């Protein structure tokens, strides 16, 4: 598996690795090895939880969707078992999907990824009226990653970007919805190991309307797809009065998350000629961070340098 480059991000997650070694997930022949979180989640849902469509499996799936629904309003991420089928609960508990608090009829999920994947199933059921549903739930922050996964799933599964764009517009149009939901759907593709392919799929939507989706996606890339540089924290903590001040200072020079940045930049370089001025400006910000924070021998440095030279000459000629 490790020879397949696109699997590397998945394999770096010990939990996913554990799942992938489950003989129920990797089918005989392994013609279609799951490569993205959505795909692994699908296989997990169908094979591990759903037991390949057996009745018992369906009951387990229903129990998990209900568990996810209860989770949304559950204090300390714990929910009661009232009304849930006991057999399914026992079986999910034995698979470590759910964990029962000792001596109480209270459950929690065995891993936060399983929470997200179960919430995803719940949201999938309400995809048609997602904005209203989020509103009804009180727009809980804990659903944010599941919504991102939903965005990712729509783009990964769909033959086109139609369903993804439709959802994006829906959350954008919902006036009472906080801006984070739009951002979650928009940045869903960043969760995929097929990011570049998904961007290709969404090309038209990204470049349409003065490339406003693309620009927002790039803003999100440099804002959310970054990590604090621990070396920078160390340097600034000597001069900052408080730890939170050190954190704020260090975040001025964040570390890009390699995979998302590399794939997005590769796609951008391919489409650089199609970008309008505003998109170029935003891309230049991304290029600046990449060129500054990556080092000799890292990918795309040459291409980015050449593009900057070309754009600068154009800008100076203007």
């Amino acid at each position, binding site marked *: 598996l490790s020879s397949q480059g696109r699997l590397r991000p998945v394999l770096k997650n010990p939990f996913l690795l554990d799942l992938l070694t489950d003989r129920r997930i990797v089918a005989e022949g392994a013609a279609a090895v799951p490569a993205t979180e959505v795909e692994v989640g699908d296989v997990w849902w169908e094979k591990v939880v759903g037991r390949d469509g057996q009745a018992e499996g369906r009951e387990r799936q229903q129990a998990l969707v209900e568990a996810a629904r209860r*989770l*949304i*309003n*559950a*204090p*300390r*991420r714990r929910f009661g078992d009232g009304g849930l089928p006991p057999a399914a609960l026992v079986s999910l508990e034995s698979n470590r999907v759910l964990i029962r608090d000792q001596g109480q009829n209270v459950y929690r999920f065995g891993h936060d990824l399983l929470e997200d994947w179960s*919430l995803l199933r719940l949201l999938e059921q309400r995809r048609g009226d997602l904005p209203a549903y989020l509103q009804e*739930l*009180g727009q*809980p*922050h*804990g659903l*944010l*990653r599941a919504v991102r996964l939903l965005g990712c799933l729509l783009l990964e599964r769909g033959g086109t970007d139609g369903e993804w764009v439709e959802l994006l517009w829906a959350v954008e149009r919902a006036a009472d919805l*906080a*801006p*984070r939901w*739009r*951002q979650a759907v928009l940045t869903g593709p960043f969760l995929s190991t097929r990011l570049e392919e998904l961007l290709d799929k969404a090309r038209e939507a990204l470049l349409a309307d003065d490339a406003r989706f693309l620009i*927002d996606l790039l*803003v*999100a890339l*440099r*804002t*959310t797809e*970054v990590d*604090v540089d621990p070396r920078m924290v160390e*340097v600034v903590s*000597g*001069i900052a009065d408080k730890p*939170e*001040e050190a*954190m*704020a200072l260090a*975040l*001025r020079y*964040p570390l890009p998350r390699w995979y998302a940045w590399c794939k997005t930049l590769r796609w951008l370089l391919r489409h650089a000629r199609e970008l309008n001025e505003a998109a*170029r*400006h935003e891309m*230049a*910000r991304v*290029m*600046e961070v990449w*060129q*500054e924070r990556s*080092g*000799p*021998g890292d990918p795309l*440095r*040459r291409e*980015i*340098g*050449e593009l*900057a*030279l070309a*754009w*600068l000459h154009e*800008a*100076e000629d203007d």
Partner: protein
Amino acid sequence: MSGFTTDYQARRDHADRLRKVILHSADALPDRVAEYLSEVAEGRSWRAKEQVLKTFVPLVDHLPAVFVDFALCELIEGPGEEGWASYHDMTELGIRGAMDYHPPAHVQGPFLRLLRTHEDEGLRLIHGLTNAATAYWCGRERDERFLGYSRTPLPVVLQFPSGPKELWGNEEVYCWFRHTSVAPNAVISALMALEVWMEEQLAAGRQGDELIGKVLADSQSVAVLGACVAVALDSLSKACLLAVLPALRNPLVWSMDIHRFAKDFQGSPIIDFLGENKLINQHLKERNQRPQRRREVRHLIPIYLFGDDELRLAAERAFAGFGDDLPLPFEEMAMNEEAVSEWRAQVERYKDHLRRERYRRIETSEWVGWQYQQAEELAEETSQELADYQLLNDLLGLSQWAAKTLKEDTPPDVAVMEQVVRSARVQHRPDDFREAIISDPEMDSTRQQTVAAVAAATAARGLAWARQQGHADWCRAVLLAAACSPRSRGDALNRRSVFHLDHKLNAAIGLTALVAQGSGDAEVRHALLGLVLDRQLQVVQALFTGLRKAWGRDEILCWNCLGLALSFAVVPGNTIVPGMGLAFNEAGIARVEALWQGHAANLEEGRRPILPLIEVDDRGFFLWDLAGRALQGLPLEDLVRQPEARAALLPLADGLLGWTISENLRGSDDDRPRRHSEAPWEWNHFFLGWLAELGRHLTPAEAESHVLAPVRATWPRLLRLAADLLDGLLRHQVARLPPQEPPEPQALRTWEQVCRDLLGQPELARWADEDYLSSDWSAAVTMMIFVNHGMYVLKEEWPHVPLFGGIIDRWLEVVGTNHEAYRAFLTMLKATSRHFPPSRVVGWLSLVASRSEDVKALWQSHNNGERTARVLHALWQASRQELTADRSAFRQFSELTDRLAASGVTLASVIQHDLEGLNAG
């Protein structure tokens, strides 16, 4: 903000980013980037050039030679750019970018990185800059346009085995490798980096002789030699000692290094009031602890003389004939026999250090050392010098005691005072203060000034003791003599001199103290009245400050001093020589004489003067700086309680305010618009503060009629007075009490009234969504939320700021969406958010975001977005539970976070991530 400005800024920022990307591509596209650098060098864009110099890391790493070529070309001025007439030549010395590399430090600029990665290129850059600055220095010294005289530098010749080497510069140039030097920051930083790098090289095992030899090879400046000697003083290794030995053959090097040592010994001040350069200053403090800071060349001599045979023999050879051929630093010195003779004597003293018999071996269980003992004949010579130093030292000790005693409120230690007064009396001579004391530091001046300072401190803090001990009459006599002594011409010209040892300053302090303690006889009173007319403002200020406690004892003296000061301050146009500033004509001299006679007569006859009207004709002057110094000492609270005094002060306040307004408005009525620099800023600030204090003691109706209404009537034409009034109200009313006591209700009402009046000005609302505020509005607007010049003006721990919540609400409604105002608001919140409920802070930030016409632009300008996120982050860290419990506040908080994250604020996305960790509900 116009679309054009936005577009222009966006395009400029975009081009800057592209340039940065290009420079960071030096590893991947070395040839293309090198080509780009030559295009920039040939082009005219200073932004592009500056960017290359600042983005040095990738260039130093991957294109070192190209970068050094570029830097040398850009940093060194061309021949046509020289101009030796300005002060800037002192620091620039033909090197461009005077303000870059500030504060100078080894970690500034490319130097240290370049030396560590490509030492040949690093040395080429450092030598290029240092040699160029040194050559410029030589040219400047030869050109009398700079300092009004010229001198011809001579080279410092070092006799190396390979042949003689000439270096240029004097003791100041030698010190350029210290951050306190006066030289281009780039050169200082380069030389500081050189010193650090050489230390690193030696620590890594490199041979000192090879290293120093290489470093000195291409240098033409004594500055590089300074760094080499420092490294030898640090390591004390044999190889380094042998390498610098040829330099130590030259007595000029001794002289320069001893000068460097004296500067190091004084300590190297690191000034950074705003804490902007904390990291660099930490480095500097560490560097200042290095051993070589406490050593100089003479400390090396016993190591040579008593070292192993190789060192000893080398030293004997090198020092043979030391100083015989006397090297001079400047050609002109040869004509000055006295200077040559002094220098020769100094070299003889150096030479004495080279004699083995002058050293005494000292041995302890832990170390062995050699102590130098001077030759007897030299010791005698030195002892006379030492006696002078001793006297100076004693005088400085006495004057320090006086300054400290006057500063402290507690009575001085009697035993110490006894000793100090006795010493001062020994120094006192009968004819002291008869002649003018010259202002230059000179032993006799210092002696007399010290005597006056001790007498003043004793009169002010120990008069009862002085009476008992029989020193009171001495104090009085000294102070009177000092008060009546003539002023030197230089001192008289310098009205704004600040010198705590000035004898008349101390006379004013001491004599007013005598009056305040009931010892003010006719002579003392007369002398004090005379000091009102002293040319130095510090004397007048000390006089009125001292009189503050004397109004209850001798109000006739106090009123006459005030009357004389104010009358003198109003100078009619027909009493001065036109075009000569404050040069009195005959009528002027007669007027001053009449004023003096009149007030002196009042004093004798116990009459209060009538305070003058503040009416200044077109050609006349009002000496506001003098008037201000008189007014600052008035005990307003006591005076306003007395009907007679109140009746005199209110018209005075009206007159002064009338003049202030007309003076500030002058220009808007004239054809010639008044420049900002012409407005009496200092007076405005003082006087509006004084008015605010006066207003505190008046009835609300009086305050309205004499203070608030007239100032308000000037808005919006004269908003600068509004900012000063707010500042005054803050200092003298709102925040005048200790932090544990809340502001008085009347102070709050006045503050709110002034703020609401300002916020009600229709002109202000027009600035609501602009990028900046007009210079007129800026100070007043930010002062309303306690921010001035970008800083919160109250103490952060002052807990009463929530009392102003209502006015802050209004402020936000009117001007909160202005980008510059919002920036000040964030400054206020950073300092005070802990005093407000979190829901209120979030509500305010949310209100601004919702009201702003373009919140992205608001957050983009002045880094407002990140600063907003920082306030939210601090709130989240401090009040997580409170925030999550309040649904409405939490909704606003998370929405703000979302919007900031969507606008590209990374810290907001970190908060967002934290919020995701909350349970799903």
